[in-house]
Structures are given as structure tokens and as C-alpha cells.
């Protein structure tokens, strides 16, 4: 990352901290939780999201003057879906087990509101380089939250970390942590901790019609 005064570092830093999509804007939670049972699946999901978010922002930014305003959402969806298909085909060809473990959640990157949100909210109004970095920053912020949740869930739920046993002998993994309730509660705890440490990040309340 460049120095603090650099313009190029700003969108990346905002995405990770001040404008963190999951913690501050409460976006993209959908697929955030489903893959966080294991650290390995989380890392792959994070990488896929970095790829899709940065390149869709880049493409939308390059196209922004050529696309009529009325059809822009459809064009953005087309760009995002195409990139997601690339990720899906790559995973299926080279990492078949990972692809099977992630299941339909790779396809669900399409409807991840973070990506469409950055395309619509930033890439449509900014140059390609900044848009690319903005997509990268938001996706990195998202991936870090996912990783934090996964690091809580994998040892407690399965007794391992990245597949290595880390808990002492006799520790009984709690099935509920690796199931859906554990995902929700772990996420709530991460949000709580982050907002307790950084209280200056105002809790942005959503308008009634999101």
C-alpha cells in the first residue's frame, strides 16, 4: 500500500476500514456467512470476491460513458455475471473439491450487493484506476471480516485451523458453531468487537427502504 498521503491508497483504505462494506454499511452479508465454517473455503471465497469486485469496477468504469443511463443496471449485472462464470469455471477445472464445497455460493457472488453497490456508486462516476482500487478495497474489507468469523468458527466448530488440529485433546467441537446459528452469532460478536474498539465509526442506520 502507498503512503498515507497518496490518492491511490484512499479507496483501498476506506474499503477496509472507514467504509467497510460488511461492518459499516451492512452489505453483502448473504454469502458472508455461508462459507465461513472453514478457513480454507473462506480464503477462496475472499479471493474470488477480490477478483470479481476489482475487475467489474474496472470494466464498468471503462464502459461508463458508452452505456445509456436506463440500461446501466443490466449492463453491470452482465459484467458481474460474466466474471463470476469465469471464477466458477476456473474453480471447477482446477480445484474441483473446493468448487464442490462452495456449491452454489460461488454463483451467489452475482447478487452480492457490495459488488453492484461499488459499480453503481463509485465506478460509474470515476476513472478506471480509482474504480479498480475501490473495488479491491471493498472486497478486501469484506474478505477480512469473513476471515475473522472463520477464525472464530473453525477451531470451535471443528477443532481445526486450516485443517490442522489446534484444540487440546479431549476438546469436544460444538456442532452448533459450525452450523448456521454459530455463523450468525460469530458475526454479531465480530461486529460488536469492532464497533466497541472503533466507536467513532458512527453506526449508520439504514433508511427504511434500503
Amino acid at each position, binding site marked *: 500500500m502507498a503512503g498515507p498521503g497518496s490518492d491511490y491508497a484512499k479507496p483501498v483504505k476506506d474499503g477496509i476500514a472507514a467504509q467497510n462494506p460488511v461492518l459499516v454499511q451492512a452489505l453483502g452479508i448473504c454469502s458472508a456467512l455461508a462459507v465461513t465454517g472453514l478457513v480454507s473455503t473462506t480464503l477462496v471465497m475472499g479471493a474470488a470476491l477480490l477478483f470479481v469486485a476489482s475487475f467489474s469496477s474496472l470494466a464498468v468504469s471503462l464502459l461508463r460513458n458508452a452505456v445509456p443511463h436506463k440500461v446501466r443496471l443490466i449492463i453491470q449485472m452482465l459484467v458481474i455475471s460474466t466474471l463470476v462464470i469465469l471464477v466458477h469455471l476456473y474453480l471447477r477445472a482446477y480445484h474441483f473439491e473446493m468448487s464442490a464445497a462452495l456449491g452454489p455460493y460461488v454463483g451467489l457472488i*452475482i447478487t452480492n450487493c457490495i459488488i453492484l453497490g461499488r459499480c453503481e456508486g463509485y465506478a460509474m462516476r470515476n476513472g478506471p484506476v480509482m474504480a479498480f482500487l475501490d473495488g479491491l478495497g471493498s472486497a478486501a474489507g469484506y474478505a477480512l471480516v469473513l476471515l475473522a468469523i472463520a477464525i472464530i468458527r473453525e477451531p470451535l466448530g471443528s477443532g481445526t485451523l486450516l485443517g490442522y488440529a489446534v484444540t487440546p485433546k479431549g476438546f469436544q467441537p460444538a456442532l452448533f458453531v459450525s452450523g448456521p446459528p454459530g455463523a450468525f452469532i460469530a458475526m454479531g460478536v465480530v461486529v460488536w468487537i469492532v464497533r466497541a474498539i472503533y466507536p467513532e465509526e458512527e453506526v449508520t*442506520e439504514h433508511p*427504511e427502504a434500503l
Partner: protein
Amino acid sequence: MHADATFSTLVVVFLAAILTNNILLSKFLGMCSFIGISRNIHTALGMGIAVTFVTFCTAVLNYAIYYGILVEGAPWCAADLTYLSFLCFIMVIAGFVQLVEMVLERFIPALYYNFGIFLPLITVNCAILGVSLFMIDPNLKFGFKQTAAYGLGSGLGWMLAICLMAGIRQKLELADIPKPLRGLGITVIITGLMAMAFLGFQGIVDLG
């Protein structure tokens, strides 16, 4: 799950989609709008009805497209086009939502003013795309009728979850919650508790 669709298998799929395999509480889909608009029970109900309708219709449409065109050796196009399924599904959903919006505005304006604001949000509701993606899971071997039952059940399950949440959040207005936990934090934790309660349905019906 067998491919033949007797009435009882349809009931099983329908109930499983609502209770044990709830699209929100066990598959984590549709969380964004769940958190965004679960503050008022009437709004939640409106969104729930809109989601149920769109989920059901697009699941059926996408089923027809997937097995009629995209899979290898399908009746209308023999080539294997399954790699286009994501693209087709999301286009069908976006197009369908747009169509419903136009039809409602033209013919039933009263309904349009009540549900109109929810419709654009539905396109990016992951629950809708999620149902279309889950129904093609080869392990489930869903036939046409099962898909219809699954689509309807999933939509109703989502509606049930968001209405329950809206009821709880109206009570929460009066609760004294630690400041960092307010808003997103407490909502997610309560969702976790709801998911835990729904685990109690495990074993009543089993999907696949």
C-alpha cells in the same frame, strides 16, 4: 428425494423449504434486505409477499429454461450450455421483476404503490437467485412440481423469518442494548437465536 412427484413428497419439499431448510436461517440468503427492512412489520410483510411471488415464478421459469435449453441433450438445444446458467438465471430474474413492475403500474396502480418500492430491491436479493441455483443441485433430483413447491416454500420461509424479526425488533426499540451492539450486531445475534430455534424442527421433514 425421488424424482416421481407424489403429493406427499411435494408436502415434504414444501415444509422442508419453510422449516428445516429455511433459505434465510440455514442458507444465509437474503440477509441484506432482511436486515435493511425488518424494522416495521407491515413493510416486512409487503416485502415478504413480493419475494414469495418472484421466487416462485422465477424458480419455475428458470427450471424450464435450464432443463429445456441449457442442459446437454435438452429438447430445444442439444449442446451443453450449463456454463451460461448464472447469466440466464439473473437475466430472467431482472427481466421478470421489470415486467411485473410495468404490469402492476399499468393495470393495478394501487398494488404498485404498495409493493412498487420493493420490486427493484428484489433483483439483487440473493434468496431469489439462491432458490434457482439450489433447485438444479443434482443431489436433490427435483422434478418440475418439486421445484414449484420448493420455490413457494422458500419464499414463504423467508417471509416467516422477516416477519418474526420485525416483531422482535419492534420490542427491541425499548430494550437497553450496549451501544456498539445496536443495529447490525444485535440483529445478527437474534437471527442466530432464531436459527437455533428453527433447528428444533430438524427431523420433522428431511430434504434429500
